[in-house]
């Protein structure tokens, strides 16, 4: 029995862990911006970790249930309410047939993942239910959730984990104050002067309004100066241009040397702008929780530190698995 969408919110999309394997054709991996939150939410309701969920941006949807279910909301602090009664985040709670699930206003973070027992069971495209709106793939007929949609649920429900919760120390959000994003300089880092390399890492940048599933733009740091060169054939005339190349997920391009853009889950797969480096995999989820105007610093790390951070994230998830199962 489906869920009725009374109101979709600002931008609510169906997401899972994405569709790797098609990036060479310009079709990005997609999937939840905050993959850790998606895994935690699914674990709490007894789903496979990669089951289809709703990703609500800034504001929650309003949903009407036509069957009993277990629900969990992880990621952003967007308090859920069942028939008006507030429920904890990062915690499994019950919803009965006929109940309405709504949300209070956003307290922190940017994207809440809503998992429902059984998982959202829309048809997969290229192996994933994730919504890639630009390419009209996944989701509901290739688009985000709209008012009046019905969301089918999977039949395979595991026993409820009602009341189970992800411990505070295992939750991750942007917190308060400056956010540090760890990056590995590389790619075309040599294209800017050593002064600009220093200022890029020293300056405080702010998340711009253009911050979406494709990429996060930042403003407020000093413009970057380029090492002089004759532009190579095919690159284009601007010093920030390169011969169109692949873009890593998390890569930081700086068109014109002014406003850095970090490519995220729905990244464009390539293009003609130079990149100064790449955000480490352990910090990608965190970007998905940044609101516009959040102050950010970039911290230089090496491969060993990146791999250690990645391992730490995996350990946190392992602890969540042990606590819940």
């Amino acid at each position, binding site marked *: 029995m489906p869920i009725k969408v009374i109101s979709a919110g600002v931008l609510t999309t169906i997401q899972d862990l994405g569709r790797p394997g098609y990036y060479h054709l310009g079709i990005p991996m997609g999937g939840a911006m905050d993959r850790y939150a998606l895994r935690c939410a699914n674990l709490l309701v007894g789903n496979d970790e990669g089951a289809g969920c709703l990703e609500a941006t800034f504001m929650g949807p309003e949903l009407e249930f036509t069957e009993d279910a277990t629900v969990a909301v992880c990621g952003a602090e967007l308090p859920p309410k069942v028939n008006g009664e507030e429920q904890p985040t990062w915690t499994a709670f019950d919803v009965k047939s006929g109940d309405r699930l709504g949300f209070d206003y956003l307290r922190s973070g940017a994207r809440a993942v809503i998992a429902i027992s059984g998982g959202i069971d829309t048809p997969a495209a290229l192996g994933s239910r994730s919504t890639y709106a630009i390419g009209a793939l996944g989701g509901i007929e290739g688009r985000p959730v709209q008012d009046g949609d019905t969301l089918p649920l999977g039949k395979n429900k595991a026993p409820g984990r009602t009341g189970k919760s992800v411990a505070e120390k295992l939750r991750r959000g942007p917190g308060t104050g400056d956010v540090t994003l760890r990056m590995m300089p*590389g790619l075309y880092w040599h294209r800017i002067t050593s002064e600009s390399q220093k200022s890029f890492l020293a300056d405080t940048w702010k998340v711009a309004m253009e911050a979406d599933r494709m990429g996060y733009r930042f403003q407020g740091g000093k413009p970057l100066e380029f090492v002089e060169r004759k532009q190579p054939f095919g690159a284009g005339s601007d010093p920030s241009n390169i011969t169109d190349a692949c873009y890593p997920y998390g890569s930081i391009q700086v068109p014109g040397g002014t406003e850095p853009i970090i490519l995220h889950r729905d990244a464009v797969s390539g293009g003609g702008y130079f990149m100064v480096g790449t955000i480490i995999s352990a910090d990608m989820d965190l970007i998905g929780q940044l609101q516009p105007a959040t102050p950010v610093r970039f911290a230089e790390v090496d491969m060993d530190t990146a791999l250690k951070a990645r391992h730490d994230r995996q350990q946190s998830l392992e602890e969540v698995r042990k606590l819940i199962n």
Partner: protein
Amino acid sequence: MKCRYTFGGDEHLFVEVDEAMSLEAFFVSLAVTNAVRDAKIKGVTEICPANASFQIKFNPDLVTPDNLLGMVKEMEKDAEKAESKLDTRIIEIPVWYQDPYTHETLMRFRERHQDPNSTDIEYAASINGYKDVPSFIEAHSSAPWFVSMVGFVSGLPFLYQMVDRPRQIEVPKYLRPRTDTPKLTVGYGGCFSCIYSVRGAGGYQMFGITPMPIYDPEQKVRYLRDFMVLFKPGDIVKWKPVDETEYKAIVEAVDKDDFEPRIRPVTFDLEAYNSDIDGTNTKLMEALNAD
């Protein structure tokens, strides 16, 4: 050609074959990425060839960055010895140059353009030394083009003009990217032509539009039923200028699923091409129009 290796965070190995675009660089990129694919390295999740570079996405829990780097460097050595020969196909793409759809869009974004008082194609013709737009269209559509990369979004091909370098068209991208581009716009930036597979943002100059879908997520178009993306690196394209009547006839045929693009198998040999570009192109055109 000496490849430059750099890691894109802890999940990507990025390799620049050459700073400048050339078919030689493309063929190294293709040979190494093919070797990586054939090697079936555990932990490699995406293999992306590009114009003069390539990228490999990997899971560092399954293959260490240093091990992967070592393996790919070995493959680069073998790739240098590989023949630059390709069994591929030539595809005819109808283009309505100076169509009203891209014209309406380019007029909306005039303040983001280098020359607000001319259209994109007038500007491109002028800075490339053509006396008028018809002679520029002749230059853009007479020789074939080589698909040297697929990407940006959903199956968009980057196309490299198959003429000697002095004759290659070069244009800058818009000063600031547009927020809109009609679906199937034929665009141009740097030395590359492209076809925008979907509607959306873009920075390339807009010359015209094709009625022929190149991406169909629903896989309803007959020639996209096997896979939703038409192009792959190594494909060769020939633009065919069409007028409004022909454009609309093809749109109608596509709607009725009655349109079959002209696609013929060909072999491309880089050495033969370099020794006689125009002769190679003549043979490609004969293959395209043989029946």
